């Protein structure tokens, strides 16, 4: 995921929800981002500042709470579990960048540290989701 795309996604989603529920004010948006997305929070906040003016409902940056969801990778062959932070330190920058854009390509560049298989499940720490939106009607 790209930080700008994420910022746009969130603003559009909040606006759509506000329209649907006829909200007058947004008091809190809880966003969770998987660790594998490797969102740079500074870039994301900068993007958000630029995208917020597109919002038709008043939306304050301080009311958007971003939390990084830590990862769990599970090998389907030997059942080993590890996390992206352990693997990321060994990755060349361009491979890490590829995973940033399309997290699923982690299956190309990461192997199970125990048995070496590429057949693992990203059990946790991928994707982007809005946990909740709080507002006033």
């Amino acid at each position, binding site marked *: *995921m*790209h930080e*700008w*795309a*994420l910022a*746009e*996604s*969130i603003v*559009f*989603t909040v606006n*759509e*929800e506000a329209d649907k*529920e006829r*909200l*007058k*004010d947004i*008091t809190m948006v809880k*966003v969770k981002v998987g660790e594998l997305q490797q969102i740079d929070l500074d870039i994301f906040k900068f*993007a958000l500042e630029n995208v917020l003016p597109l919002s038709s409902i008043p939306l304050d940056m301080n009311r958007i709470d971003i939390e990084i969801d830590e990862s769990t990778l599970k090998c389907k062959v030997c059942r080993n579990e590890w996390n992206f932070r352990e693997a990321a330190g060994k990755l060349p920058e361009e491979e890490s960048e*590829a995973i940033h*854009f*399309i*997290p*699923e*390509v982690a*299956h*190309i*560049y990461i192997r199970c540290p125990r048995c070496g298989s*590429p*057949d693992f499940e*990203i059990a946790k720490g*991928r*994707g*982007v*989701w*809005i*946990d*909740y*939106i*709080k*507002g*006033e*009607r």
Partner: protein
Amino acid sequence: MDRLYQRGEVMDPRLNIIDKRFENVQRIIAVSGGKGGIGKSLTASTLALILTKQGFRTGLLDLDFCGPSDHVILGIEGVFPEEDKGIIPPEVLGVRFMSITYFAGYNPVPLRGGEVSNAIIEMLAITRWNELDFLIIDMPPGTGDPALDIIRLIKRVEFLVVTTQSRVALAVAKKELQVLKELGVPVAGVLENMRRKEHSTVKEELSSCKVPFLGSILFDDNLEDALGDPRELLKTDFAAKLERIVKADLIQ
């Protein structure tokens, strides 16, 4: 006093931006075929070149993650998308081209079903096509997750189904057309490729599917030599016939 509201259902915001990404794309054609090896990627790639040649602003999206080949057919190497509030597909030979190969390089991409779906969502969400007359999508074989995802995520997609006169390919094409019909997805037409016999029964066999039959293209013995060189590709008999079909039945 205003009532407090809290939406607790988990929402995937990526889905909301995908519609925005296609706002300025006039037509979206998914080139599909139930079976591999029927010339689907070749049709998609050549179609994109032909449309560009006709003066249309054209994009090509290779969604066959496990076996991408458009970059091979078009001889695309050494280019990478720009970043500008998202990913801008590079323009190669006039075609804006997006592929998993930008992120996978020459490596195989061993993805399971659900992971393919997520990768499609990511790619659709981050890619900024800007204004296009046509976006051609090279679909992976089959009517599994990727096809259903495209139908769900891209509201205005229409399908171009490629088949051959092989009984195997034809049987699978019929199944795909049935699925598309049941889902209410528009079908731009069916294209027969690699015809070898003088008289083919493909058109008759598919008449019960009630979709336009766009035409038939003979097997082109010289095609292999043109792969990787788009200028040579456009000179082939295959491209010439496809261009006639495009002008007659696809450009409206």
